């Protein structure tokens, strides 16, 4: 397992609110990692910083074999380097079909004129079928994404991430609003994806994290509080105090 993403000394202050303080974190490839923490721990800002939506005040983020710095890159540049992101609220393009949604995400040239002149290939169609099969949406390909159930939309979004063939996948609360059965399938998709790439899952649901059975990073007030197996971190006194003790710490 080699290091894919290395964040060190990241800080971010929003008009006086210290969202991230001296955060350091490393993710290998392949690796499955769960990031947990109470509300306001900086989980979303953490993802925003990696994906280029928010610029950190200080610190560095290095990505890939040649350790390229992500700071100062635009969202689309970072995405085309191989970092995909799934939002908490499922955001799929509702007016378009499942197939079109996946086709847009497929790893293909992104420049205006190559997209304008792009012709569908059988290889691309096969890849779409493959992903659709993985996310249980094979028989929904021609439906507008807006007609899917909440859980199916979550899967479609994960499928769109897989279609991008990213090296690092950031997934924000993938199991939110899912039935127990759907959660199980989601766990399988994520575990499978993490066999060949790095996957970071931000999650509140402890049961879900337990099922992922991976290394856990606990964030608190914008920095790493503890890291290790779920059993290890849940034994940590401070973790219990700030997070697990507060059973009411909600979504």
């Amino acid at each position: 397992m080699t290091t894919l993403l290395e964040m060190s000394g990241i800080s971010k202050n929003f008009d006086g609110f210290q969202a991230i303080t001296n955060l350091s974190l490393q993710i290998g490839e392949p690796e499955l990692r769960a990031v947990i923490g109470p509300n306001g721990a900086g989980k979303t800002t953490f993802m925003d910083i990696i994906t280029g939506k928010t610029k950190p005040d200080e610190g560095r983020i290095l990505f890939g074999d040649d350790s390229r710095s992500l700071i100062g890159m635009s969202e689309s540049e970072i995405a085309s380097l191989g970092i995909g992101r799934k939002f908490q609220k499922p955001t799929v393009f509702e007016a378009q079909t499942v197939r079109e949604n996946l086709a847009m995400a497929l790893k293909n040239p992104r420049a205006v004129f190559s997209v304008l002149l792009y012709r569908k290939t059988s290889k691309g169609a096969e890849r779409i079928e493959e992903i659709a099969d993985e996310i249980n949406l094979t028989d929904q390909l021609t439906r507008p994404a807006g007609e899917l159930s909440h859980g199916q939309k979550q899967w479609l979004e994960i499928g769109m991430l897989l279609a991008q063939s990213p090296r690092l996948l950031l997934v924000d609360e993938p199991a939110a609003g899912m039935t127990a059965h759907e959660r199980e399938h989601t766990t399988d998709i994520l575990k499978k994806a993490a066999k060949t790439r790095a996957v970071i899952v931000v999650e509140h649901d402890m049961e879900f994290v337990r099922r992922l059975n991976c290394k856990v990073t606990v964030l608190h007030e914008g920095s790493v509080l503890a890291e290790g197996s779920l059993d290890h971190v849940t034994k940590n006194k401070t973790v219990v105090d700030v997070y697990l003790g507060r059973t009411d710490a909600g979504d």
Partner: protein
Amino acid sequence: MSQTPPPRKSFIVRNPSVLYFLAALALFTVFVAVMSEATGTGLISTSFVKTLGKTLCFCLIAIAMDVVWGYCGILSLGHFAFFGIGGYAIGMWLMYARTELIVAQSLAGQVIPPTQQEVTDAIGKQIFGVVGSSDFPAIWMFADSLFMQLAIVVLVPGLLALVFGWLAFRSRVTGVYLSILTQAMTLALALYLFQNDSGLRGNNGLSGLQNIPGFADSGQDVISLVFFLASAAALALGYVVFAWITDSKLGNIIQAIRDDESRVRFLGYHVESYKLFVFTITAIVAGIAGALYYPQAGIINPAEVAPIASIYLAVWVAIGGRGRLYGAVIGAALVSLLSSWFTGGGAPDIDLGFYKIQWVDWWLVLLGVTFALVTLFAPKGIGGLFDKLVRKS
């Protein structure tokens, strides 16, 4: 995988509406041509042929507006500025070339042949006399060349849209703020044109554009039919090009930008480039539509460029139905024809006894109410109702 994918269908098979549209347009064009005064039947008057030709130009700018707004989600209130620029560009050549012919004729009788300078001065005096000047401003540099002015029809709207769009999209100005910005651009252009020293004859505008230099012997009946046919051809071509663009993968991307711009960014697409492409290409088409419109209208003045025109354009597209090209055509044709019927004294006034509804004044109220009703009860416009009917049958 053997059961998939389905065989790739041709563009026409995937978009039967393109074929229907082209067939309907062709039928309409042939009908008008046969009925026009130029072919002798004369059931459709020359002035109505002009009205129909102008309507086709409106349909062309409406499909451009539909692509930029209905498909890409950019509510531009500046596309009539591009339309006006196209009109001014062609108008400069029309006015210059025609005045040149007139001047040449009137000077021909002189014993001493006039120098080139005298000819130029005489043309300048003719054109700029109304604003108390006789010098040619720098922007008339190429007015003697039809080719250059035609290039300007395409280049100036294109470049203006490119620069304006680049600045606006790069700063991530979106939604209503972008609309306001485009409206400010339009207003600035109109105010500039209103000035006498703008070099474009201030609020007099350019006139006599219906007289095509070199075709003084052809009657307006023939000229109007030629421009009508040219407008129909331009609309057909524009329709096919835009249908092809919106059907391509780029069409998927711009609709995705309309629905969730930041999500598209995280898919790795450079959203600004896409918006810039759409904004610029539609501005160019608007310019071309304007260049075809004003020779049929005969006159262009700064009021045509005022922001209200671009707002009307948005109303046409909204009533016709956003996100479907035929919707924009229906909206533009219906509303602009009704507008000239109501405001041109075609519609009979309604006498309520205590009050007389005069449509010249009340048309705007009717249009506003229709717009509100469509927005509330048929957000997909007439095109959306049309879709429902087709699906039911």
